């Protein structure tokens, strides 16, 4: 029997037992940071996670599994694919990582337009399976929507977050090279992963032909040379296995599970409650602020309330938006902090449709040792100082070269010993480029609550209405043209531009829904990620994004979270919260 989640009676003793200084909704990449920062500042902090618990090392069942030990050698069986057509599409999803993703039928949503919403419901969230690219945003990105008139101005600038980027980078460990590129500012870097010989060649050729295009070493959350601070977290050097999405037994890459959560736990101030599906944020009209969070236990379906002075919403972009939309009260009849009516609107994402692959001759006397878990980056070169294309926004290009096994056509030519021998040797080199492009937030690209359908916990389903636009099509075209041209100038052959035409969402970079801004009439959050009309609620995950920029966003969420947590603690000390 499903209980009515709106009727929760808690007595005074129950309230005391369920009261913390801070509540963090979500334990993923930003929730983990909120927990760490708040716990370190001495706040008793409750982290609510809707999925199961995952502990570092203990809950990485495939971390050291050999290829032949997977029953289907990494592939999911047909029955699973038929039952889970959505989640099976996620990059890196397979027999080795399926346990860190949801199953489709457990978590339905309504796609008004095709949108692949990829989720990982467990302690650590998607930080276990993230892409790990960690470039900083540049000031170009913070100012572009306003400068070129395609969006709301950010209430903050690069200088506001730069120190917090440093704070996060030192703790999680970022490899990279200081390249002095204005479009992709330098950070606190551990030594970078080396280029392979073809990547070095591409870098040289691109530099020769384009003075404003810089192919540089990956900036990625890997410990190439752990510092004292990383060793204290119990993490060690990246072993170049490139099996990150299984969970790393060495703690070589950053996740909430390997880093921030255990660190927060050591303070003695952390409580994590798994299987806690957040129903809504509780608003107290007399006090004029939020007093707690109502949850439904994922297993028992029982409703419970928890109370705190500050609440951090880090449930992932669309789920944080969903929680706010579902937090209705007399004061906020249209969703929490939604006087402006923009809650759920201006959802955007990253454009991942375009890629170009090619072969390159030569370099046959060169190979690699170990497996590079990172990829070189060609920093954005479009629409920086001025608009120099027929679209707005820019794109980051990830670039790589590799030497696959086997002669190219061996599989079609013969049988027997020569065939086996050809497949046992490295073949020719191949290269690729793929895009991570900015998209324009629009009111029409939105999410909202279903009027009719609810999930098994009685929470309205999310309706996604997010699609591509003409700007996206123009950017893809330009990316494919430019990338093909660069590869041609570098001497590559068989250059194949490709547009996947995949639905938005598969990029797993959905952003917005509760955007930051200066004006409460057009935004939900202020420059400190506080809800304009209820300052003790902070939203510091992808939901807060005013625009998408073209850099990988996770580290910006972490930096914004640390910055907001520091602000929250100061405001609490000043008795403003």
């Amino acid at each position, binding site marked *: 029997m499903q209980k009515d989640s709106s009727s929760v009676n808690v007595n005074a003793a129950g309230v005391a037992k369920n009261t913390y200084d801070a509540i963090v909704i979500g334990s993923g990449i930003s929730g983990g940071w909120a927990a760490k920062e708040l716990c370190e500042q001495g706040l008793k902090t409750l982290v609510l996670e809707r999925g199961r618990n995952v502990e570092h090392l203990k809950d990485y069942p495939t971390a*050291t599994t*050999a*290829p*032949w030990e997977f*029953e*289907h*050698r*990494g*592939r*999911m*069986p*047909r029955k699973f694919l*038929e039952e889970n*057509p959505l989640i099976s599409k996620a*990059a*890196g999803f397979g027999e080795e990582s399926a346990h860190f993703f949801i199953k489709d039928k457990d978590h339905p949503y309504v796609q008004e337009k095709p949108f692949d919403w990829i989720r990982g419901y467990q302690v650590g969230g998607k930080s276990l*399976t993230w892409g790990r690219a960690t470039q900083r945003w540049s000031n170009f990105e913070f100012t572009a929507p306003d400068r070129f008139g395609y969006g709301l101005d950010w209430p903050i600038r690069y200088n506001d977050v730069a120190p917090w980027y440093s704070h996060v980078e030192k703790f999680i460990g970022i490899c990279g090279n200081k390249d002095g590129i204005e479009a992709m500012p330098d950070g606190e870097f551990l030594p970078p*992963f*080396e*280029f*392979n*010989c073809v990547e*070095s060649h591409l870098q040289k050729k691109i530099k020769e032909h384009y003075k404003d295009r810089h192919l540089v070493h990956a900036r990625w959350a890997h410990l190439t040379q752990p510092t004292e601070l990383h060793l204290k977290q119990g993490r060690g050097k990246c*072993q*170049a*296995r*490139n099996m990150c999405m299984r969970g790393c037994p060495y703690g070589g890459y950053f996740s909430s599970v390997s880093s921030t959560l255990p660190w927060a736990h050591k303070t003695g101030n952390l409580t994590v409650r798994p299987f806690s599906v957040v129903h809504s944020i509780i608003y107290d009209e007399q006090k004029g602020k939020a007093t707690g969070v109502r949850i439904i236990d994922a297993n028992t379906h029982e409703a419970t309330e928890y109370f705190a002075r500050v609440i951090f919403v880090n449930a992932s972009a669309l789920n944080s938006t969903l929680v706010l939309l579902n937090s209705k009260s007399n004061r906020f009849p249209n969703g929490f902090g939604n006087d402006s009516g923009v809650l759920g609107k201006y959802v955007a994402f990253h454009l*991942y449709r375009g*890629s170009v*692959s090619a072969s390159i001759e030569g370099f*046959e006397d*060169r*190979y*690699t*040792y*170990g*497996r*590079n878990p990172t*990829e070189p980056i060609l920093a954005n070169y479009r629409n920086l100082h001025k608009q120099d294309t027929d679209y707005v926004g820019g794109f980051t290009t*990830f670039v790589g070269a590799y030497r696959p*096994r*086997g002669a190219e056509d061996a*599989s*079609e030519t013969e*049988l*027997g*010993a020569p065939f*086996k*021998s050809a*497949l*046992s040797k*490295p073949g020719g080199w*191949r290269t*690729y480029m*793929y895009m*991570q492009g900015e998209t324009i937030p629009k009111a029409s690209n939105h999410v909202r609550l279903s009027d009719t359908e609810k999930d098994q916990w009685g929470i309205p389903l999310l309706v996604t209405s997010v699609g591509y636009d003409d700007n996206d099509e123009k950017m893809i075209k330009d990316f494919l043209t430019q990338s093909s041209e660069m590869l041609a100038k570098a001497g590559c052959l068989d250059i*194949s531009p*490709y547009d*996947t035409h995949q639905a938005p969402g*598969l990029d797993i970079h959905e952003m917005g829904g509760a955007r930051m801004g200066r004006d409460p009439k057009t935004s939900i959050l202020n420059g400190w990620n506080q809800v304009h009309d209820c300052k003790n609620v902070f939203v510091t995950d992808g939901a807060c994004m005013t625009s998408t920029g073209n850099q990988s966003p996770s580290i910006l969420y972490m930096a914004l979270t640390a910055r907001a947590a520091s602000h929250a603690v100061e405001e609490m000390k000043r008795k403003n919260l």
Partner: protein
Amino acid sequence: MNRREALAATARVLGGSIVGAQIFLSACKTPEKKQAPFSADDIAFLDAVGEVIIPTTTDSPGAKAARIGDFMRVMVTDCYSDAEHKIFVDGMATLKERSRKQYDKDFVNLSGAEQHTLLSAVNKEAKDYASNKREADPEHYFTLIKQLTTWGYFTSEPGATKALNYLPVPGRFEGCVPYTEGEKAWAL
């Protein structure tokens, strides 16, 4: 391969689509006749066919030692669509029959040379079929057998560790190291 590269590379860069991977996109939902499970004879037959495709050589065991017949059984049963399953099973029957017609012997009892001659002819037919077929046409059964054999072998313990250079924990990455012609490729 990285998370993002996987997006770019799947089914395109790394040598065409893998049969069975796109099952959920298939429009054909008509349930076909359930196939009988593979018999011990089928497994032995597939081991023999696999061993011709990837034989034992001086430096490493062949597909039979990698239990390729059993691997094919698991993959065809668990991962193939009904239509692909049928192509595979019908293909086994066709191949067995062809051996009996041509040599008056079961495939497993042919000499190594006879097996090689027979499969070379089938391989050529599969190649010709592939180069003439339209995209929507089904794959040739021997293409399926060959794909499963090479994939299964090089991800098996003998294939990965003996025919290739298996390095589960490299410890470091070096981007540009010398390669001498003839050296084995990395298994991962």
